[in-house]
């Protein structure tokens, strides 16, 4: 049984921050990541609000720091199956590691295998908008910068193994189960975008109705289209609509809470679009703009000054026309007010966040009614869960933006560090779960 001081589950921005902070204090950290590369959601983004800094330029150094840190071990394609707290206050953690079919040490990340591979698959890194090969480096700045083979789509033709200059590809790799002895556990399991389940918005059937994260990929410099185009016919849209609260603050889809990031990312994207598609009219339909952070309100004012029109009104229904254009029906609240229909060539749903990971059967932490891991005491110490030694960071704890996720990662690292030094042994006093949104 391998021994680590801390196990961080999730290699997103919160998990990386937490791992680096712990490792800097000379703790041995194991970072468990489900995907083939660390980086999480943030590495997929184009720019960040409210500074409009390039997201990769902030994430990549952090990824690199995590990857190169002598005290951090990264385990990719791995999922935690059981976390047990022992009587000596340490944890036994069972991890299931899926085969990569590529040996990490010999692989140089040259991507010759992808050149040779005949199979094209849908690229989930590009949110389903682009394609990639069944084998290859997951994306340009992936870490570890090594190829991965997708066994479900691979036809095992052997071309990649022949093409590989270092013979790193090994079709006979098997899944591995690890048992780890760890001093503390941090859950930083992150988020998923709310799926488009609202029938009124097409239920995912309309081609030119995309989600915020898909727009992030379209806007990203290394994105799938290399420009601003719409999915159905590659036309450069001249009229783009943002629909706020499309997957949150809505009891009818069971997600009544506010996802906290959508107002700002829609504003950010509309600013970026004003530059990337200068001819396009951009409209944001909102119920109320929740610009709660430092510099956020000014950011929205900037967007307004740049010519983005903000219309108060919740879009009730989208209808698709034959040419792929979309008609939105909305009751507008302005001087004239009233029921209107607007036509747009591309509609972006500012869809919310839902938790990615369900701890049921793995670890006995409390979750709130929407599946986010609950803080034992949200006001006093948000990183603490009901189990001593298990801490939570990032969106696993509740919707938050990048700034808050990084803070949350550091906070969890601090708590974990205190625990590793012998503190925080008693079970925290658990407060009644705070309902995130009440009627």
């Amino acid at each position, binding site marked *: 049984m391998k021994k680590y001081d801390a196990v961080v589950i999730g290699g997103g921005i919160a998990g990386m921050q937490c791992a680096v902070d712990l490792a800097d204090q000379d703790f041995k950290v194991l970072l468990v990541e489900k995907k083939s590369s660390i980086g999480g959601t943030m590495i997929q983004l184009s720019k960040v609000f409210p500074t409009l800094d390039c997201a990769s330029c902030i994430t990549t150094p952090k990824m690199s720091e995590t990857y190169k840190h002598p005290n951090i071990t990264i385990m990719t394609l791995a999922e935690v199956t059981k976390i047990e707290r022992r009587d000596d206050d340490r944890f036994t953690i069972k991890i299931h590691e899926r085969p990569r079919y590529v040996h990490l040490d010999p692989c140089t990340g040259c991507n010759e295998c992808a050149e040779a591979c005949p199979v094209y698959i849908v690229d989930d890194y590009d949110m389903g908008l682009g394609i990639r090969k069944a084998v290859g480096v997951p994306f340009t700045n992936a870490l570890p910068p090594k190829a991965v083979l997708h066994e479900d789509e691979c036809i095992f033709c052997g071309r990649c193994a022949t093409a590989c200059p270092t013979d790193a590809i090994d079709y006979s790799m098997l899944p591995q189960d690890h048992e780890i002895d760890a001093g503390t556990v941090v859950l930083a399991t992150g988020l998923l975008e709310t799926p488009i389940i609202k029938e009124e918005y097409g239920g995912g059937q309309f081609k030119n109705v995309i989600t915020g994260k898909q727009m992030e990929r379209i806007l990203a410099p290394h994105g799938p289209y290399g420009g601003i185009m719409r999915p159905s016919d590659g036309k450069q849209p001249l009229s783009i609509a943002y629909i706020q*609260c499309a997957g949150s603050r809505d009891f009818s889809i069971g997600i*009544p809470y506010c996802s906290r990031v959508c107002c700002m990312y829609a504003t950010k994207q509309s600013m970026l679009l004003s530059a990337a598609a200068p001819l396009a009219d951009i409209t944001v339909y909102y*119920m109320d703009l929740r610009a709660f952070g430092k510099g956020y309100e000014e950011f929205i004012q900037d967007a307004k000054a740049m010519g983005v029109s903000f219309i108060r*009104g919740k*879009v*009730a229904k989208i209808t698709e026309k034959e040419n792929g254009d979309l008609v939105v*029906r909305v009751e507008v609240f302005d001087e004239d007010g*009233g029921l209107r229909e607007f036509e747009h060539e591309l509609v972006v749903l500012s869809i919310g966040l839902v938790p990615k990971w369900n701890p049921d059967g793995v670890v006995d932490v409390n979750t709130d009614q929407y599946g986010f891991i609950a803080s034992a005491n949200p006001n006093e110490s948000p990183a603490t869960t009901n189990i001593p030694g298990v801490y939570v960071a990032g969106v696993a704890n509740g919707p938050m933006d990048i700034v808050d996720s990084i803070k949350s990662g550091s906070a969890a690292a601090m708590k974990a560090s205190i625990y590793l030094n012998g503190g925080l042994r008693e079970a925290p006093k658990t407060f009644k779960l705070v309902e995130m949104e009440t*009627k």
Partner: protein
Amino acid sequence: MSLIELDPDLLQDIKKYGAFDVSACFNCGTCTAICPLSDEDGEFPRSIIRLAQLGAKEELLNSKELWLCYYCGQCSTTCPREAEPGEFMAAARRYAIAQNDVTRISRVVYKSKAAYVGFLSLLTIVALWIMWPYADFSATLQPGINPTWIYFDPEFVHWGGLVAGGIFAVWMGLYFLGLFRHLMRQLRLYGPDSTGVSIFSKLKIWIVSLFRVVFTEVLYQRRYATDQDTSVPFRRRRWVLHMCMMWGFILLFASTVINWLTKPIEIMVPITYPTHILGIAGGLLLVYGATRTMIFHARRRDDNYYGHATFSDWVFLTLTNLLGISGFLLTLDIYVPTWQQWAAYFNIYIPEWQTFAGYFIIFHLLIVGLYIVLAPLNKGAHAFYRPLTLWVHEYGKGIKALTTPEEESYTDEIPILT
């Protein structure tokens, strides 16, 4: 700017008429934008919810939008706050019926189940107490004579009918007083600015819009038909069921009136008599519509529309159904002996038929009486409110079309400067 009077208890008052939660509403407007009947001329339900939240009682009671809604339930399904706007509109309509009822019985009828049952029982007992002594249930049917003249004292039928008619006339008069008030308020508030329109044009628009409303909205109910779920089979659609009930009622009413006007009342005619066929067709439609609607109300408790029937709705629906059923029982009972005679003519033996026509007549008269007394007090009132509101609405649209100048067409000719 004019001041409006606010009633802070308005929302609480309306809540007594239905199960909704518009305090949760954050005024996003989803309900208005999803509504298939909302258009530039009438936007609801959010605007009406807002009135209730503010406590603008007069504006709410006089709003035409209240009566433009047919409660398809789409707003309730899509509401992000589960505020049940559709049910709110229904409750606001009940509230408006109660407020416009000058006798004030309607408030009690809507709010208290016990009081409604008591009121119904009282009416039934009084009606039976009056009719029973004049009835002779042991009489036997005689061919060619209206059974009412056989089973009841003819003097009682004559005078009783006149007195009952008088009472009903006064009753309806009282009720129409409320309706008249409502209509005049609507006109004052929503009547468009018609300055410059000649009296003849106005009269013309009144008449044209009346015809339009009667043909498209009363007899065909085009607006109701627009929001039908086409995945439901035709025979089960709400609009079809409603049309069945309404046309059933109209046919039954028409056959009674035509009978009364065209033939001596004490004569019994064969079942093939035109008005009888009209009546039977009406009865069949009525019973089909009412029965199916009742079944849906009983079964679909989770449905946004069918799940929300109140006790008063149930009473109204039951009475509607009984109207048809009691008529059928009576018809069956009266005409079966005639069939026996026909059967005898063809040498077919049908066993002796024990008639209960006396009891059935009393039952039918009781139901008709209750129906006429109760209809204006509960859901039945919509039969007057909707057409009248739509008439005013249509008139307003006509005036608006006349007074709004046509938009000048844009020409891109460059003016030549000399």
